[in-house]
């Protein structure tokens, strides 16, 4: 679980922060509700998570609420990692 949070946080910083934007992104920083990530740009984050962790996140689970913080995203990843293991 601990490995997921820094990986997701680093991706968010690289993918979404403009050059010169030095705002702090921690586990509970609002991502969607702050406007840093919107539903249009969220697709690349979703694809990164699925590829990195070899999971599939269905559309109904990929909600703005589920993606609003790094901590919630990590929780989502763990949930679908368990689902993938359970399906073997």
């Amino acid at each position, binding site marked *: 679980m601990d490995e997921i949070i820094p990986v997701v946080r680093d991706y968010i910083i690289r993918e*979404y922060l*403009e050059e010169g934007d030095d705002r702090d992104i921690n586990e509970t920083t609002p991502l969607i509700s*702050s*406007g840093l990530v*919107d539903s*249009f*740009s969220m*697709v690349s984050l979703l694809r990164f998570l699925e590829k990195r962790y070899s999971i599939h996140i269905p559309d109904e689970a990929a909600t703005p609420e589920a993606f609003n913080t790094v901590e919630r995203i990590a929780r989502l990843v763990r949930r679908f990692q368990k689902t993938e293991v359970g399906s073997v």
Partner: protein
Amino acid sequence: MAFSDSFRHDYHTEIEGIRAAGLFKEERYIHSPQSSEIEVEFPTGASVRKCINICSNNYLGLSSHPEVIAAAHAGLDSRGYGMSSVRFICGTQDMHRELEKRLTQFLGSEDTLLFPSCMDANAGFFEACLNERDVMIADRLVHASIVDGMRLSKAMQDTYKHSDMGHLEEKLSEHQDKRFRIVITDGVFSMDGDTAKLADIVALAERYNAMVFVDDSHATGFIGATGRGTHEHCGVFGKIDVITTTLGKALGGASGGCVSARRELVEMCRQRARPYLFSNAVAPVIVAGALKVLDLISTSTERRDKLEWNTRYWRGLLKEAGFDIKEGDTPIVPVMLYDAKLAQEIAHDLFEEGVYAVGFFFPVVPKGQARIRTQLSAAHEKHHLDRAIEAFRKVGKKHGILGLGRKELMARCAA
């Protein structure tokens, strides 16, 4: 009754929520043709007052031009009022074909297809021309109609940071396993008024084997030395694979749009684009007006030259007065205020001073980025702009915002 009291109550609550958040938009009723000066009734029932209009897309001042109106009248007389048909059934007149040819020449493409609007062109193109083996890579600030159109396509979606060529290159490299890649951008971005780095985008697209799509709605007719658009301005005329644009802004301001592109892509739209297949043909009166507009702007650059002068002059006036504006050289000049309520109050006060401008706030722009988007027209004379800046100064002073930069304005709003 299907629309029960509970439905009505829930919607009412949601609408009141929009109002309470300071995000409610209201129409103002204009009692005159579109022009640099208009007669406005606001609020509803108030006396009509004359205002300087500084927020229209009437960039070349052709929305009420007598020659355009005369040509539209002639079109009504010779070709009737409406087609009552989609294009492929019995909705295509010789004038539609003529306008498509003229737009092809003007924009430097291989073929053109008219749509009821550029919104429809953007809604139809991606679904018609791409499939699940392809990827669309869009600038994050593309127009809402492009976002909607991309969502209708089965192609993969990806985005790059606004005008960040390094990030775009990463995405192009990442997606080399796809059948087709298409880079999507506005030519001139509608909310910030900045211009896409089209020369760099074209170079990257050539290196990574991708198509280039540009929505040039806020550029066609006046950007570039002869008004062909952003591609002319950036030195890549003839190198853009797809241009969508509108007849509803500089090119007469009525309605209509088009896809102007490589001939195979236009043919795909003609065969498969849903807004083309299922929506009524552009009315003859609109086509006739648009043909006259193309006559006027193809034979002289006088109007786009005047617009360029007006743009430089207005930007200089706003900066000198101490407003925080987005840098650029297009006739879209956002006056940044950041707070939605402040934007609305200033728009209201400007109206009281005889200047018509509207506050832009969420969801039209991101939260915390509210502004008044001023737009120049070739119909503006110097005295209009001098009068307008006096109003802006007076209102800016009243609200204590002159000389404040972004951080101070944002801090002021947070207080």
